[in-house]
């Protein structure tokens, strides 16, 4: 499948996910934004050898996946784009950092290996958190939330309009790509003779569309400022979660729960 068709599918998929109903979907978007950001900050703040401490943070995305009913597979499929860079950077660590950290069953594990795995895990966790935010929040409610947070009107409106036209453009590019491929069997991409005209044609047409769109806005009284649908009101649970979860993250960061419990069990056993 072409990259462009896959993008169309992914957009569709995200829309469908955001339209699902679950406690996570019903949470106020600002609450979700606060929780997600504090989660990501907590995760990246872990030391580079602190694998055991980081593990416990994996519970949050797990819990959310489970609570929202969104399949984790979709998220992993999306990660193929950005994860390679993280892995590439991490892969060098075992070569440069050969400091032995501990031995496990006679095999000496170097600091580089631990820091590599930690880095990759961080990458996965952060992406999962962002993905969960996007997958459980529709673009319009996200935009309403951004307006509430005083993100400039121009920016939010631009985001809203662009998102609306991304699917239109992706579809047009997809149709053009198909039309091109059908007449150019065996070519893997656009031939150099059409480099300019392929996108150029679409670009010129898009300029006309932009004019038409502007006309449509003007005809309905657009005067430069957008009036937004108000986002939903935050209820008590929304406030509670927005305060509670970041505190939980902080505590988990401060006290390595996995290790504490492990040590407790060990000392009880001995």
């Amino acid at each position: 499948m072409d990259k462009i068709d896959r993008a169309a599918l992914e957009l569709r998929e995200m829309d469908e996910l955001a339209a699902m109903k679950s406690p996570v979907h019903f949470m106020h978007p600002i609450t979700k934004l606060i929780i997600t950001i504090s989660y990501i900050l907590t995760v990246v703040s872990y030391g580079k050898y602190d694998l055991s401490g980081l593990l416990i943070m994996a519970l949050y995305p797990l819990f959310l996946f489970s609570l929202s009913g969104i399949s984790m597979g979709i998220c992993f499929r999306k990660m193929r784009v950005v994860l390679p860079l993280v892995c590439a950077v991490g892969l060098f660590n075992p070569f440069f950092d050969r400091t032995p950290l501990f031995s496990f069953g006679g095999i000496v594990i170097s600091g580089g290996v631990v820091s590599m795995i930690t880095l990759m895990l961080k990458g996965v966790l952060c992406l999962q958190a962002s993905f969960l935010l996007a997958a459980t929040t529709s673009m319009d409610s996200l935009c309403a939330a951004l307006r509430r947070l005083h993100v400039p009107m121009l920016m939010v409106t631009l985001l809203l309009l662009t998102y609306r036209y991304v699917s239109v453009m992706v579809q047009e590019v997809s149709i053009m790509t198909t039309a091109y491929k059908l007449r150019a069997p065996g070519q893997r991409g656009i031939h150099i003779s059409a480099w300019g005209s392929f996108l150029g044609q679409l670009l010129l047409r898009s300029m006309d569309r932009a004019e038409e769109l502007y006309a449509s806005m003007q005809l309905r009284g657009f005067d430069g400022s957008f009036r937004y649908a108000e986002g939903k009101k935050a209820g008590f649970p929304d406030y509670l979660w927005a305060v509670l979860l970041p505190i939980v993250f902080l505590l988990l960061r401060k006290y390595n729960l996995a290790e504490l419990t492990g040590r407790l069990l060990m000392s009880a056993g001995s």
Partner: protein
Amino acid sequence: MHMADALLAPAVAATMYVASGTAAGISIAKLKKDENTQKLPTMAVTAALVFAGQMINYTIPGTGSSGHMCGGMLLSALLGPYAGFLSMIVILAIQCLFFADGGLMALGANVWNMAFYGCFVGYFLIWRTIIRSGWFRNMETKAAIRLKIIIASIAGCIITLQLGAFSVVLETSLSGITELPFGSFVALMQPIHLAIGLVEGLITSAVLVFVFESRPELLQEVNSTEKGIANRQSLKTTVIILAAVAVVVGGGLSLLASSNPDGLEWALFGNAEEGYAENMGLDEEDFGVKSSAADTAAMVQEKTSFLPDYAFPGSESAAGTTVSGIVGGALVAGAAALICFIGGFFRKKKRPGTV
């Protein structure tokens, strides 16, 4: 070139957010002064087009591979630097949210690496300079402009991509993420992006030349002979903006590198990461490791970093840490299973018939 959250320390990410946010704020103010309400729909449609256009594969002649076009240069040539920059931000935000390209926290850095250089450096220093220049004066006007567009696109893409790639290296290294020495990292990233930049430049120039042939009025700076005087003033503004942003970034980053790293890195926990010291070329023993080693990470670091040779420490505490860590890990796994069960239970109970 999208960076992930994991590649950035919070302090670096925050610095980049401030830098990109400043540039965005200036751009918004600039656009508001224009009071051109038509710009908004044009920006949105163009941004959406560039978003989709970046997924088109262009065959590179003579090779089996394919290239893509460069969004920043294209957008700023069509919309101007300010509108182009804001459109790029929106594209990056949508890529981040819906396609997991780059992370939420890394967005500031990604905007900087890909949009700022492409739109501001690419526009003011390259596109505008070259298009306005008197090059190829002896040629026919149209042919001269065409050549200037090609040169500006290629130079613009190469230079802005080099800057972007260098920033990726700088940000990652400052974050203390990689053990890869700074020099090798640079040597790895720059040449790759030189090749990518050249291809992107060629594709972008092809698109821009096509637009020039059909609707030259759509391109910034082209056909604006009398505008030259009016724009003189904005050159001064540009320099001021560039300087201001440089101060913000430079200031932020040098703060990180300052002699008191404890206050700057994730201050909340005070765990010193040796990566900082190493990358900054600072002496490890002066600071950092001696600071509050409250949590295990720091403890482990302390144990290992003072080892002069690569001998295994052999201390029981390290081994003990491992075992308890494994036991704890098992507990976490158990909790995960439980959570999955509880989550599913809640969902079914609260909203029957969904999913």
